[in-house]
C-alpha cells in the first residue's frame, strides 16, 4: 500500500503536523495582532464615542465562514492521509507480538523467542500485534509517532520502521494504575544482520511439537503466547506452579510431566483455577508417539525459555546494549551487564525472570523507590513488615523471598501499598534463580 520508497511513520505524521501548525500559527498570529491593534487603535482615550454602531456585514461574515471551512478541510485531509499510512502495513513487515500487563511489556517473536525490550531491525518495517492481559495499556513510541491501546479481548496493531539504529523510549500511554509511569521500556533498533543473529541465537521452538498441537486442535483453546483463551496458555507451562481445583478443593501443583499427561488424558480431574471444566478427554484419541511429542514440547517450552539470553546471544548484542544504556541512562531499567554475566547462568536467568515477569516494573535495582521497595541490598537485610496489622521485623532470607512472591499480601513492607500480585507461575527453581540474582544486588 505504501508507495516506494517506504515513508516512515514519522514522516507521514510530521507532514500533518507541519500543515496544521502552519495554518494554526497564521490564524493565531492574525487573531492576536488584530485584537491588540483594535485595543490600541479604538481605545476609549482616543475615541470616547464609538465611530460606528455597525453590527452586521453579510459579505464579511460569509467570508469568515467559508475560509475556515476550507482550512479545516485541508487539515482534516492531511490528518486522515497520515493516519492511513499508520494503518496500512507494508507487506514485508516483521511480525512481533507485544503483550501488555500491569506493568511491563513482553515481546514475542515469530520463532517463540521472548524479550522485555523490543528489538527491531533497522530499515525494515515491523508490525507489532498488541494484546493486553489485564487492563488497558497503550503502546507508544514517540520517536516513531505511533500509539495504539492494548485492549483486553481485542487485537490491535501498530507498524513502524526505524531508519536509524538506536534506543528509543517506549511508554505505556494509557493510564493503568499505580505502576503506569514505570511501564517503560525501549525499542532497540539494531542493524538487520545483528537482529537476525540475536533472533537466531536461541533455537526456535521446534516446529514438530507445534504441528502436533495444531493437528489435535489444542491450539483452538490454548495459546502459545501467554494470552488466556478457553484454556490456559502453553507459554512457560512446563514446571510452573498452578492452582487447581480437584473435587472442589483447591491445591497448588507443579506442572511436571505427569501432571501434564494427566491433564490431557483426564482433564476433568484437576481444573485449573479460573477456567471452565470444558476440555474433552483425549484418552484413546492421541497416538502414543504424538502424546510423547506433545509432552516433550510442552516441558521443553520451558527449558528453551530458560536458555534464553544465554551467553552467545548476549554477546551478539553487547555493544548495542551498552550504547543504549549510556544514552538512556534510565535508573534500574537494566542491570549492569557485567554483573549479570558474573556468577554465571543462574544469575542471568534470575535477572531474565525478573525482567520477563515484570518485577522491574515495580522494583528498582538501584535503591530508588518505585511501586515496591528496591531490590538493591534487599537480600539479607532486616525488613519491617506489617502482618495482620502488626509491625514485625523479619530478615530477608530465602524463605522470606518465597513468602514475598507466593503470598505477597500477607506481609506488607512497611510504607508500601499491598499492590503486588502473587506469582504462582514461578517455580521454586525460578525463585532460587531470582534469589541468586538478588544476592548480587548489594
Amino acid at each position, binding site marked *: 500500500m505504501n508507495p516506494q520508497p517506504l515513508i516512515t511513520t514519522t514522516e*507521514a505524521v510530521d507532514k*500533518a*503536523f507541519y500543515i*496544521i*501548525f502552519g495554518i*494554526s500559527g497564521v*490564524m*493565531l498570529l492574525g*487573531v*492576536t495582532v*488584530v*485584537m491588540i491593534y*483594535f*485595543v490600541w487603535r*479604538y*481605545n*476609549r482615550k482616543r475615541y470616547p*464615542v*464609538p465611530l*460606528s*454602531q*455597525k*453590527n*452586521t*456585514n453579510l459579505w464579511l461574515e460569509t467570508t*469568515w465562514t467559508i475560509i*475556515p471551512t476550507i482550512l*479545516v478541510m485541508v*487539515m*482534516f485531509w*492531511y*490528518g*486522515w492521509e*497520515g493516519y*492511513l499510512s*499508520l494503518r496500512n502495513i507494508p507487506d514485508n513487515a516483521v511480525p512481533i507480538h507485544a503483550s501488555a500487563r500491569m506493568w511491563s511489556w513482553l515481546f514475542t517473536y515469530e520463532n517463540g523467542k521472548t524479550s522485555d525490550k523490543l528489538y527491531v531491525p533497522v530499515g525494515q518495517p515491523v508490525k507489532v500485534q498488541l494484546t493486553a492481559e*489485564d487492563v488497558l495499556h*497503550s503502546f*507508544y513510541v514517540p520517536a516513531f*509517532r505511533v*500509539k*495504539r491501546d492494548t*485492549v*483486553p*479481548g*481485542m487485537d*490491535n496493531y501498530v507498524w513502524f520502521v526505524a531508519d536509524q539504529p538506536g534506543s528509543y523510549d517506549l511508554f505505556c*500511554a494509557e*493510564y493503568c*494504575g499505580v*505502576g*503506569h509511569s*514505570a511501564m517503560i521500556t525501549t525499542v532497540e533498533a539494531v542493524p538487520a544482520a545483528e537482529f537476525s543473529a540475536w533472533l537466531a541465537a536461541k533455537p526456535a521452538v521446534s516446529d514438530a511439537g507445534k504441528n502436533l498441537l495444531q493437528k489435535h486442535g489444542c491450539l483452538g483453546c490454548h495459546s502459545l503466547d501467554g494470552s488466556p483463551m478457553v484454556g490456559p496458555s502453553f507459554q512457560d507451562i512446563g514446571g510452573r506452579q498452578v492452582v487447581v481445583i480437584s473435587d472442589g478443593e483447591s491445591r497448588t501443583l507443579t506442572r511436571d510431566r505427569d501432571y501434564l499427561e494427566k491433564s490431557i488424558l483426564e482433564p476433568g480431574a484437576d481444573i485449573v483455577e479460573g477456567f471452565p471444566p470444558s476440555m474433552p478427554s483425549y484418552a484413546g484419541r492421541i497416538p502414543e508417539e504424538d502424546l510423547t511429542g506433545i509432552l516433550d514440547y510442552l516441558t521443553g517450552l520451558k527449558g528453551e525459555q530458560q536458555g534464553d539470553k544465554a551467553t552467545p546471544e548476549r554477546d551478539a548484542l553487547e555493544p548495542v546494549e551498552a550504547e543504549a544504556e549510556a544514552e538512556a541512562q*534510565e535508573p534500574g531499567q537494566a542491570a549492569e551487564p557485567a554483573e549479570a554475566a558474573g556468577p554465571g547462568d543462574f544469575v542471568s536467568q534470575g535477572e531474565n525472570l525478573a525482567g520477563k515477569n515484570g518485577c522491574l516494573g515495580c522494583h528498582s535495582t538501584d535503591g*530508588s*523507590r*518505585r*511501586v515496591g521497595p528496591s531490590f538493591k541490598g534487599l537480600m539479607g537485610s532486616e525488613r519491617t513488615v506489617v502482618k495482620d496489622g502488626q509491625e514485625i521485623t523479619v530478615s530477608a532470607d530465602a524463605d522470606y523471598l518465597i513468602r514475598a512472591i507466593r503470598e505477597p499480601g500477607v506481609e506488607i513492607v512497611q510504607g508500601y*501499598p499491598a*499492590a503486588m500480585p502473587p506469582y504462582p507461575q514461578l517455580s521454586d527453581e525460578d525463585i532460587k534463580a531470582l534469589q541468586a540474582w538478588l544476592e548480587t544486588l548489594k
Partner: protein
Amino acid sequence: MSEMTAPTTSDRGFFGEAKYPGIFGWIFSTDHKRIGLLYFWCIFFFFCVGAFLGLLIRLELFAPGETIMGAQTYNAVFTLHGVIMIFLFIIPGIPAAFGNLILPIQIGARDVAFPKLNLFSWWLYITGAILAVTSLFTGGGPPDTGWTFYVPFSAQTSTNVSLAAIAVFILGFSSILTGLNFVTTVHRLRAEGMGWFRLPLFTWALYSTAWVQILATPVIGITVALLFAERVIGTGLFDPTQGGDPIMFQHLFWIYSHPAVYIMVLPGMGVVSDIIPVFSRKPAFGYKAILISSLAIAFAGSLVWAHHMFTSGISDLAVMVFSFLTFIVAIPSAIKVFNWLATMYQGSILLDPPMLFALSFILLFTIGGLTGLVLGSAATDVHVHDTYFVVGHFHFVMFGGTGMAFFAAMHYWLPMIYGRMYDKTVATVAWGVMMIGFLILYISMKVVGMQGMPRRYYDYVPEFTGLNQLATVGSWILAVGLVLLFANIIRGLFWGDPLEANPWGSASLEWQVSSPPPTENFDEDPVVTHGPYDFKQAGIL
C-alpha cells in the same frame, strides 16, 4: 430598556429579606439570586481546592522520581483534581452560579420557572460534593482512576470508585435540573417585549447549553450506574471475559463528556459575548451568527465524541467520520472569535478588568482551540493522544477559556449583586501576573507533550525535566496572581466602595434594576423596548 426603577444602591435588596433566619434563609431559599450565590461560593471553594491539588501535582513533577508523594497518592490527587475541576467547578460554574444570578433578571423574569427544583438542584450538588469528598476517606481509599473512569481498571481497582460513581450520578442530576429550569424559563418567562432576538447572548448561550445538559447528561448517569453495577453486582457489560466490550464504556463516557466540554465553554462564550459589546460601546457584531453558532455548537458537539478514542482500536471508518465532524465543530467557534473581534472594530474600548478577562479568553481559547485541531486530526492525534499536549489543550480551553470567562463574570456582575466595587488596579495587576504564569505553565506542558511525555505519569524520564520544572515555576507565578485576584475581589465585594449605578454602561436589563437587586427583581413587570446592545436607545451613548 424600560426605565421603571431608578437604579439605586442604598437598600440591601434581596440580602435584606429572608424567609428564615440566618443560614436557613440561604439554604432553604428559593430565590434564584440566593441560590446563585450559594452555588457561586461552593464552586469558588471547590475551585480553590482543585487548584491547590493542581499545585501539588506540579510540585510532585518538579523532578523525576518521588518528590513530595508516592505514586498511589499522586494518582489519587490527579483524579481528585480532575473530578473536582470538571464536576464541581467547571460544569456548574457559569450556568449554575451566574446563570442563576443573572439569567432571570436579564430576561425580565421574577425567578426561574421552577424555584423549588432550583433549590433541590443545589441540594443535589452539595450532596454529590459531600459524597465525592467522603469517597476519599472511606472504603478502599481515594479513587485512582482518573476522571475518565475507564474500565477494566476502574472495575478492578480496590479504591472507592463506587462511591465516586454515585457522586457523579447525583451531580449529573443536579446539572440536568438546572438545564431543565433554564429552558423552561427562557421559553415561558420572558418579559413583555423580550423577543427571541432581543435576548442577551449570555442567555442564548445558556439556553443552548441547557439543551446539552438535558440531552447528554443522562448518558453519563447510566454510564456510571453501569460502572457501579459492574463493581457491585458483577454485571460484566464491559468485561471482555463476560462478552462485554471495554470500548463501549468509552463510547458511553464520551457521548456525554464531549458534549460536556461544550457545556463548559458555551456559557463562557456567552459571558464574553455580553462583555465585549459593553466595553466597546458597540452592538454585538453578527448577533444572529453568534446565537446560531451557539446552537450549532450544541448540536454538532453531540456528534464528535469518538475523537477521544482514535487510538483505542475503533474502526478506521469511525476515525474518519469523527475526525471530519470534529473539524466541522471548530467552524462555529471560529465564527464567534471573528465576530468578537469585529465588535471591537471602530468601538470605544475600555480595558477594565472584565474586558481584560474577556480578551484573554479570546486569546487563550484560540490557542487551546487550535491545539484542539491538532488533536482532531487523526494522524497527529495518534502522536499526542494521552500526552501532556492534551493536558495543555484542555487547560487552555477550560482554564484559559471557561476559567477566564468565570473570572470575567465575577468582575463584571458580582459588583452588581453585592452593590460594591473592587479595586480595579489590583485586579489588573493580578490579571497580568496570572497571564504570565498561565502561559509559562501550559505552554511548557504542550511542548513536553509534543516530545512525548505521557499524561498521568507520576515519574518521567530525565529528558523531560527542564520543561517540567519550567511548568512548575509557572504554576507558582499563576498561584500568586490567583491569590491576589481572589483576595481583591473578596475584599471589594464585602468592604469595597458602594457601586455607582450601571458602572459599565450596559444596555441590558440586569443593569436597570437597583443594586443589590430586590427580592423579586422588579417592582412592576418590565416592558422591553430595545435590544440588549442598543446603547443609543438605552441612553448610554
